[in-house]
């Protein structure tokens, strides 16, 4: 980031020439794509579900698709399972990734390097391969069953096609980014602050609670926001590993759109997922923008 700041401060050699809107021309196509395929669909989705023709064909304000969603028990169940899955994943991710990140921050050598490589590895495993591996390992008569059987233990109750299936898959998938974000936050914790606390007799838990946690709270929130945005409307893993009913919002929207062929209700469901994630999205954008320091 220092490079960026330096570059911005130094006067450009071209001076007036670079103030010409040539830059605007160069960025026009990507910006247009974001406008057309990100901003416009969102505005369009909100508009189309709220302002549409009624039975007689006259356009008007109409909340009925939302009323239907929140009065339909099946939709409510799907929303509930989505919230439950997201919450479970967020808790598990913190419980798993925070100790890993803390360990990586405060140790050096070959073993931590190996642990870090392992923790980042899932980033390079496409979720479709993960889904397949999950079924072969945790599915009925999978590798875990084989290993348990070989030492004379009973089979597990497989999480495949239960609500725990997507939770396990999504946690696996989100470990690398969570660890990386937390590790980057832990980089802001100065060694001397911890040593000072140790000198006055603080134990490990006190150091964590009073010194480390306040300094990484922002990174924690960013990691959670990022995970929630990805998990809330995830499709592939819940579709392949989760139960048929209730289903998470991703498969639910997909089925409403493609199989029930009901775009209006599918868009309504999409707008509802936007609503549930808006706080996380805004927080995420704000943090990234602040970090980029431009």
């Amino acid at each position, binding site marked *: 980031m220092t490079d960026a700041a330096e570059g911005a401060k130094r006067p450009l050699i071209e001076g007036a020439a670079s103030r010409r809107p040539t830059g605007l021309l160069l960025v026009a196509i990507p910006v247009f794509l974001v406008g057309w395929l990100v901003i416009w669909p*969102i505005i369009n989705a909100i508009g189309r579900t709220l302002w549409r023709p009624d039975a007689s064909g006259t356009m008007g304000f109409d909340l009925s698709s939302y009323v239907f969603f929140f009065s339909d028990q099946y939709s409510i169940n799907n929303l509930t399972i989505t919230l439950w899955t997201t919450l479970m994943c967020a808790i598990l991710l913190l419980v798993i990734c925070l100790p890993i990140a803390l360990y990586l921050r405060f140790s050096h050598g070959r073993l931590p390097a190996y642990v870090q490589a392992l923790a980042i590895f899932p980033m390079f495993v496409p979720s479709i391969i993960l889904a397949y591996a999950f079924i072969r390992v945790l599915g009925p008569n999978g590798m875990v069953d*084989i290993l348990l059987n070989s030492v004379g233990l009973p089979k597990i109750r497989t999480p495949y096609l239960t609500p725990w299936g997507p939770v396990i898959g999504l946690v696996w998938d989100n470990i690398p980014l969570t660890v990386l974000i937390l590790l980057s936050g832990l980089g802001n914790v100065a060694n001397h602050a911890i040593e000072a606390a140790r000198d006055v007799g603080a134990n490990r838990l006190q150091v964590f609670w009073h010194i480390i946690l306040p300094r990484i709270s922002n990174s924690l929130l960013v990691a959670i926001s990022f995970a929630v945005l990805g998990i809330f409307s995830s499709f592939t893993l819940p579709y392949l590993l989760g139960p048929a009913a209730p289903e998470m919002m991703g498969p639910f929207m997909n089925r409403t759109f493609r199989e029930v062929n009901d775009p209006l209700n599918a868009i309504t469901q999409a707008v509802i997922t936007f609503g549930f994630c808006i706080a996380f999205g805004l927080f995420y954008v704000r943090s990234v923008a602040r970090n980029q320091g431009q």
Partner: protein
Amino acid sequence: MERVSPVISAPAMAPNRPPIDWAGIIFTALLSAAIVLPLIVVGTWAFTEVWRYPNVVPQQFGLRFWNQTLTRADVWSALTISLQLSTVVTLLSAAICLPAAYAFARMDFPGRTVLFFSFLAGHAFPKFGLLIAIAAIFLQLNLIGTFWGVVLIQLVGTLLFMIWIPVAAFQSVDRRMEEAARDVGASPLRVFWSITLPQAGPTIAAAVLLSFVGTFYETEGAWLIGAPGIRTMPVLMISFINNQMVIQYGAVLSVMLWVPSFIALMFARRVIGGGAFARGFGG
């Protein structure tokens, strides 16, 4: 671990043997079991001909299913479509994003900051919800089930990476070298070609590779927008898993699909190292 000689050891180092790293050993064991084991199981299935429960190792190894998988017409057409899509999307993305990245890094124009951060918009909303909203628009434009519909949706997915990573690359180029070259009479194009590009090149290449691999594995857009006309490799995998076909088909495809990912892993290490990557995600 060998004992560090007290003569060489720095004052900060403890003079005694370092304690056994129990935390590291526990993490290594747990992560190996959770992350490496599933992939080994998939790899084993790909080279297995007979593996009946409850044997711990397969009864018979062999390449029979590689032959069967690779002679399936749907596998070849999916592979062709996937490679075509990834190539077209990556080339288009490079063609529109790299000039934009250069402009963001080096030029001053109205609305620069707002436009720069506008690329975050696609990541600030739940992805599948956004895809549904886009699909509703594509439905009216008759882009559902077409090659170019999938190209558009995957192109949008590459924008953030393909602009932000190259911007950082252009900004880290040493401006003094460029100015020096210009002082001795090099043309702007010559400066760009001989000074700027060689320094920014490796990072940009990593971004291009990431976008190629990311597009190759992109599942949800291809599934929602592409069906039924466009069937990519990940979409084919979904149907293999759902229809419970011969187990080995999925395993062979996984191992095959894994190859581009492995290449990405090798190349992306420089981009991901140094924490720059996590910072890009707001860490």
